């Protein structure tokens, strides 16, 4: 068998890495829910959750426990399999993206040099896009299986919104790819070492990408699929217990992952500015890299929340107008400009 011919150490190493990455992103998503409530409270001159544990730090555990103990309700007239498949898919697609992200440089452990990336595939960016475009299935299937008008409307909104903004996102990405000349996320990070970040070359592209990331994560001001004052709960109206928890959790994981992607693509990934990593021992450099990446991610997550509590939701036609008639032409213009500049400097 070919499976046995693979280096066993590599398999164990990757398995451990997968477990660590998945549990870390789960824990981070958990504390993102806590941070969301805290940030919301602080921006609104309130205190936020402060009862469970010191500073309310155990609040996400309490929330999760509550969701676990809630009653499971499956609507009578819905397809039970699809109803369960919906949140499962949403959660899975949210977790899958983390496979290609370079979390840090190599570390030396037990005499092995371990890369802190689950899979360095040569089409990393496209993989991210593929998984993101699949993210809508969980919402659509769940909403359809709910057999509820409001759910269905939420699901349809999610589908059309994500398709519309994926285009602008893809085109803004093409401009970035012209600059970097590679699809591998690892190589992109290596190109951006020492403060040579892509955002300097692609400010407009980054802005478009940021707006589209908000839309892809269904975050305010683009949270129309779950607009609670028009559609009750949108696609998760009929969900209860941990299945609802999965939907809500997937949103926070998406937010975390898209923050990581933005940090990796535009802000140098695990590159810590003003620190020369070559002078440090590899383990120390990797640690600093992870800290730098997490710092950037925290900034982005705060931005997500900050915007959520500042900008009201778009109307549906405004959303479509912004996506198709502003962002896509702008992204095309950005692509043209980038191509022109690259051509000019290469000749």
């Amino acid at each position, binding site marked *: *068998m*070919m*499976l046995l011919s693979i280096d066993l150490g590599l398999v164990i190493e990757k398995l451990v890495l997968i477990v660590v990455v998945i549990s870390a992103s789960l824990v981070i998503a958990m504390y993102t829910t806590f941070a969301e409530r805290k940030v919301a409270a602080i921006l609104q001159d309130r205190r936020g959750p402060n009862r469970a544990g010191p500073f309310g730090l155990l609040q996400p555990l309490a929330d999760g426990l509550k969701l676990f103990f809630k009653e499971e309700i499956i609507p009578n007239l819905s397809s039970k399999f*699809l109803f369960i498949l919906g949140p499962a898919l949403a959660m899975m697609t949210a977790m899958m993206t983390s496979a290609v992200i370079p979390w840090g440089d190599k570390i030396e452990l037990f005499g092995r040099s371990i890369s802190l990336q689950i899979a360095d*595939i*040569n*089409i990393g960016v*496209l*993989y991210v*896009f*593929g998984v*993101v*475009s*699949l993210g*809508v*299935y969980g919402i*659509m*299937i769940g909403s*359809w299986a709910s057999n509820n008008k409001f759910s*269905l409307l939420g*699901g*349809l909104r999610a*589908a*059309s919104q*994500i*398709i519309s903004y*994926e285009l602008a996102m893809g085109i803004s990405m093409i401009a970035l790819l012209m600059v970097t000349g590679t*699809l591998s996320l690892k190589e992109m990070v290596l190109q951006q070492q020492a403060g040579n970040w892509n955002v300097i070359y692609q400010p407009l592209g980054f802005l478009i990408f940021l707006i589209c990331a908000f839309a892809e994560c269904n975050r305010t001001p683009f949270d129309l699929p779950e607009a609670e004052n028009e559609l009750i709960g949108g696609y998760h109206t009929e969900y209860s217990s941990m299945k609802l928890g999965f939907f809500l959790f997937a949103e926070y994981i998406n937010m975390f992952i898209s923050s990581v992607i933005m940090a990796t693509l535009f802000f140098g990934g695990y590159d810590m500015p003003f620190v020369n990593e070559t002078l440090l021992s590899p383990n120390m450099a990797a640690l600093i890299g992870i800290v730098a990446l997490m710092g950037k991610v925290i900034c982005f997550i705060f931005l997500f929340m900050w915007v959520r509590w500042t900008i009201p939701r778009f109307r549906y036609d405004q959303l479509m107008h912004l996506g198709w008639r502003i962002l896509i032409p702008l992204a095309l213009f950005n692509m043209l400009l980038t191509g022109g500049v690259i051509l000019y400097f290469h000749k």
Partner: protein
Amino acid sequence: MNFTTLVFIILSLLTVVSAVMMIASKSPVHSVLWLIVVFFTISGHYIMLNAQFLAIVNIIVYAGAIMVLFLFVVMLMNLNADSEPIKNYRIQLIGIISGGVLLLILLSSVMSIDKSQLVEMKVGDEGLIKSLGMNLFKNYLLPFEISSVLFLSAMIGAVVIGKKEDEAENKKVN
């Protein structure tokens, strides 16, 4: 039997079964979902042929965009047994004949395959982004550009159709 063959057999079985399920399932939404599974398994085949780029583009374009639109339309129309078109005897007969002809063509083409030229797994770089780009933009530039004109005309057509309805509605309101 080595590992690659095993994976190939499992993938192929999945592909065929889900393709059959797509035709056989009663609910149109289930059909669309089975079709998505088919796209995934085909992407798996692409990966086995060392064509990761094609695999991921297949997922992005077909599973990620086109099938979402399909699902969108099917969910909106809410098809059920009442809205199914009446199938008369003649249409069924024509369907059987045309399907049978297609089956014959497929069978004959499969039979005529030269068995000595088997597909090699995990080698070759035809499906990788570099060689694909070279092929598209060097060897087949003209067909590529012509097809892009075709897409452009399709897009303009869609816009024109959309605009017409818009104007008619505006007239009604006024």
